[in-house]
């Protein structure tokens, strides 16, 4: 039952309209950060209030919602956001990527390819990719306007100078349609290629920083790099110990006090689906509840 004290999906209609206008503007200018008047949500900022507001503005009663955090549907953050929308919008929820029409996420893009019928909503802590090198908002705005991105490569240069290779593993900056450099949010760079020409609409919401940006379906997204240090969508050099997948992003899990460890799919739905279909990894038998 929808809690009658709230409007559908918690936000009032005026606020949702305002957010939708920002989303539409973002869709019209892929990768451009649109300011919006972020509202107080009944959860702290670190919990993805930007994503929650975007989701609230997009949800319809017919939607099926999936919420993931670090690839999993059952972490506290994912559970509480999912419950929030069950309570305030009474929408159907699912853990299956395939069945979801709207997926709110922190840290991951599902392994299963997305479709034109789906919307991905990303929770973004810091939308400005240039922020750490150029704190002045007036300057970064100019840089975006003029596509003046030497500074972004300075960041990668520093990375190589220090580590011998591009060590940026999360929130790896991308160039959108050869105009705007964009923060993909703290997804692993393994997921960056999934942004490129995705059939799904991708929306990014930053609550504290009050920014929304978007990648409409089939937008060209290129990860920045150097000729002699090309971008690589790296992952741990293992197969999933539960389902045997060799091409999915893995988390390293400590399994006992003796330093024993295993690698498992970070996308729990993907892993469970593969196991249900009979795939078995190195430690797959009898370790169903390891995550």
């Amino acid at each position, binding site marked *: 039952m929808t809690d009658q004290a709230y409007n559908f999906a918690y936000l009032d209609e005026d606020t949702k309209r305002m957010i939708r206008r920002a989303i539409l503007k973002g869709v019209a200018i892929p990768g451009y950060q649109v300011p919006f008047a972020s509202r107080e949500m009944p959860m702290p900022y670190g919990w993805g209030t930007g994503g929650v507001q975007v989701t609230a503005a997009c949800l319809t009663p017919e939607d099926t919602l999936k919420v993931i955090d670090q690839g999993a549907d059952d972490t506290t953050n994912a559970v509480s956001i999912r419950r929030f929308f069950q309570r305030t919008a009474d929408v159907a929820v699912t853990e299956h990527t395939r069945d979801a029409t709207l997926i709110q996420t922190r840290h991951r893009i599902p392994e299963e390819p997305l479709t034109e019928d789906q919307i991905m909503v990303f929770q973004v802590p810091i939308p400005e990719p240039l922020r750490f090198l150029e704190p002045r908002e007036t300057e970064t705005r100019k840089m975006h306007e*003029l596509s003046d991105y*030497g*500074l972004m*490569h*300075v960041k990668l*240069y520093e990375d190589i*100078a220090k580590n011998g290779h591009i060590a940026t593993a999360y929130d790896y900056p991308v160039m959108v349609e050869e105009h705007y450099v964009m923060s993909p949010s703290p997804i692993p760079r393994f997921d960056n290629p999934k942004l490129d020409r995705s059939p799904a609409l991708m929306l990014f919401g930053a609550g504290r920083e009050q920014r929304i940006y978007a990648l409409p379906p089939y937008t060209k997204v290129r990860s920045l790099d*150097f*000729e002699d240090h090309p971008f690589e969508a790296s992952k741990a050099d293992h197969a999933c110990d539960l389902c045997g997948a060799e091409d999915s992003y893995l988390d390293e899990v400590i399994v006992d006090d003796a330093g024993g460890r295993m690698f498992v799919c970070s996308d729990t739905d993907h892993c469970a689906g593969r196991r249900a279909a009979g795939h078995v990894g190195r430690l797959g038998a009898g370790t169903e509840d390891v995550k």
Partner: protein
Amino acid sequence: MTDLQMTRPLFSVRDLEKRYGARIGCTGVSFDLYPGEVMGIVGESGSGKSTLLGCLAGHMAPDAGTIAYDGRDVLAMSEPERRRMARTDWAFVHQNPRDGLRLSVSAGGNVGERLMAVGGRNYGKIRDTATDWLGRVEIAADRIDDRPSAFSGGMQQRLQIARNLVTGPRLVFMDEPTGGLDVSVQARLLDLIRGLVRRMGLSAIVVTHDLAVVRLLADRLMVMKGGRVIEAGLTDQVLDDPQHAYTQLLVSSVLQV
């Protein structure tokens, strides 16, 4: 007529004026700068030197006048055009290296930024060029990964110069490039700047309090007072035979600005 004047000026300024409300920042400034020529701007504090330099370099908009660079009307350019030109053809050396450097970025990254801004995408080449430039400004190659916050004032200023000259600009603006440094460090830096300017055939506009700086660097000199140019000419001529009473005061050891 000198050889210089037979070629086309690189930079032409006419009747430039900048006001701060009712106060004059600078007014009625006109000059031509020829390729390979260095012009000094001297004058007491508040005479309008920084205001003029800021207008010339595009950091602030003048209220009247025209500026042409290489035959193009600078003030009529769109902002993207002007910014592109400012990072390929021009350079600006700030008095305080902290204003012209990124202190949280390594020396190599500071030098490499302009290369990357104009499309440099080969890490190895960028690093080689940065190493070469550190050498040219007498910074040891093994400091390439250090942050400039760990450098002395003189080193920071040399790094700022390398960062600015790495893309081979044609016109360099400098505001008190040796200000705030010890006398011995100043002399060495001036020598370095002079060598680079001559070797690269740069045109430069140098603002300074210090007549020793103009004597060493500048082919020509403009003396400013109250926002106006009161005397201009070849450096040696102006310094050895000043016409204006104020300039006479300035060059006499009595008045040390």
